[in-house]
């Protein structure tokens, strides 16, 4: 497998996805193989951070003291321009279908992707 690029899950301001050279599938959850066809070593790529809001849920009841300090916070699913879907945070006012771009924020002691509406 090629060298691992770092992304927000390990504290870097980046969103990484994988492309399969064999079947052309995209996947967001990192694996050493393509989940669609099984081919080894999908190619890691850095996403542009552009996308469209697929779903939103404003969390008003959190379960830990660290996350409770942030309520309400908006959990969003974003369809990235590159063809994969990801979960992130976003502006509380975001609506389904909004064009968004990724920023990064601190949440409960970690860096998380945070989507803002493209003006």
């Amino acid at each position, binding site marked *: 497998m090629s060298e691992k690029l770092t992304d927000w*899950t390990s504290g870097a301001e980046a969103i990484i996805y994988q492309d399969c050279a064999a079947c052309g599938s995209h996947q*967001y*959850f*990192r694996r050493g193989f393509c989940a669609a066809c099984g081919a080894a070593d999908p190619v890691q790529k850095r996403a542009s951070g552009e996308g469209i809001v*697929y*779903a*939103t*849920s*404003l*969390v*008003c*009841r*959190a*379960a*830990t003291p660290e*996350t409770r300090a*942030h309520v*309400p*916070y908006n*959990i*969003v*699913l974003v369809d990235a321009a590159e063809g994969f*879907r*990801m*979960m*992130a*945070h976003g502006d509380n006012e975001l609506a*389904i*279908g909004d064009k968004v771009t990724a920023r990064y924020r601190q*949440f*409960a002691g*970690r860096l*998380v992707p945070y989507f803002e509406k493209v003006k």
Partner: protein
Amino acid sequence: MQLYIKARRFAAPRNDGDLGIRTAMSFITGVGLTSYGKHEGSSSLDLMSKAAAMAIADAGLKRTDIDGVLCGYSTVAPHIMLATVFAEHFGIRPSYAHAVQVGGATGLAMTMLAHHLVEVGVAGHVLVVSGENRLTGQSRDASIQALAQVGHPDYEVPLGPTIPAYYGLVASRYMHEYGVTQEDLAEFAVLMRAHACSHPGAQFHEPITVADVMASKPVAMPLKLLDCCPVSDGGAAFVVSRERTGETGILVRGCAQAHTHQHVTAAPRLSELGAEISIAKAKAASGVAISDVRYAAVYDSFTITLAMLLEDLGLARRGEAAGRVRSGYFNRDGEMPLNTHGGLLSYGHCGVGGAMAHLVETHLQMTGRAGNRQVRDASLALLHGDGGVLSSHVSMFLERVR
């Protein structure tokens, strides 16, 4: 022998077992259910034992007749071998035993497995049991946190989602695509509460209105407190047997599963979710059509879950389930009585036992023992369970044979 031949008339054609004399079948022969709510001082094993004893007695069996045990899990008392922990505690030595974990679909998944186990002769009487002191055994925060771990550990959980948030995401999309409103969703909470009001074992007995649901505290929008099932203590059990033990047989007519994803991020589009796949396979396995169904027991962890599943299963057209609630279609005296015990939303949700209560209620309805909740005709029932975030699905048809 007469009984089997008579029953066979109802069963879908399949290969004859037993030297061609009868088709292998399975029956739900007994059910047990505790009240849901607070059982202060009861452990998960206590609640499992209580429900198990009731189910075995209901089947007219002795505990020594039980030769198979399938159990769920307890988030309060996790164990790598819960079935044998239970069997030892309960005082039985089964020849087949293990736990099953499919989230909210576990109860029906265990029933499906028990059905196949008795069909092939691995066991004669399988006890399916679950119970958990989820309400009094741990804090609500601990429950919410434990359950949120069904999310992806790297890509979802660090974002601080909760189970209501996972379903809130699905709800927002469903409402967007099919024009469903928050008031529509509230109807399901109102219906389940109305049903719970006539069951003494239900956790909640105060009637609620759509306005109450709308005014309840926001949890994970668009879901508010009354759109969400509660956390409960409780236990449920049933016995699945190769032969009926009473005059009325509750036959497992056919069942099927579908698993399309685990995490909501990886879920397929709304039109490709697992409920539609599992119901299609269950219909094919049983030869039953939705128009044959007289009673429905459908998983209702949140109002959106129930709305979507009813439509996925074909019990309402897309976007029209709430309208059917308003017209009384799913009432006890309606055309398709639904979760007449009050469902997860109002009978309560103690983990795996939560959705098992749906099957217990179905059994009571089918055997004419539901008392003041009795429906006119529950001769054929559709049950559906969902685990994860609409990740795992089990559909099942039960039929009464005399």
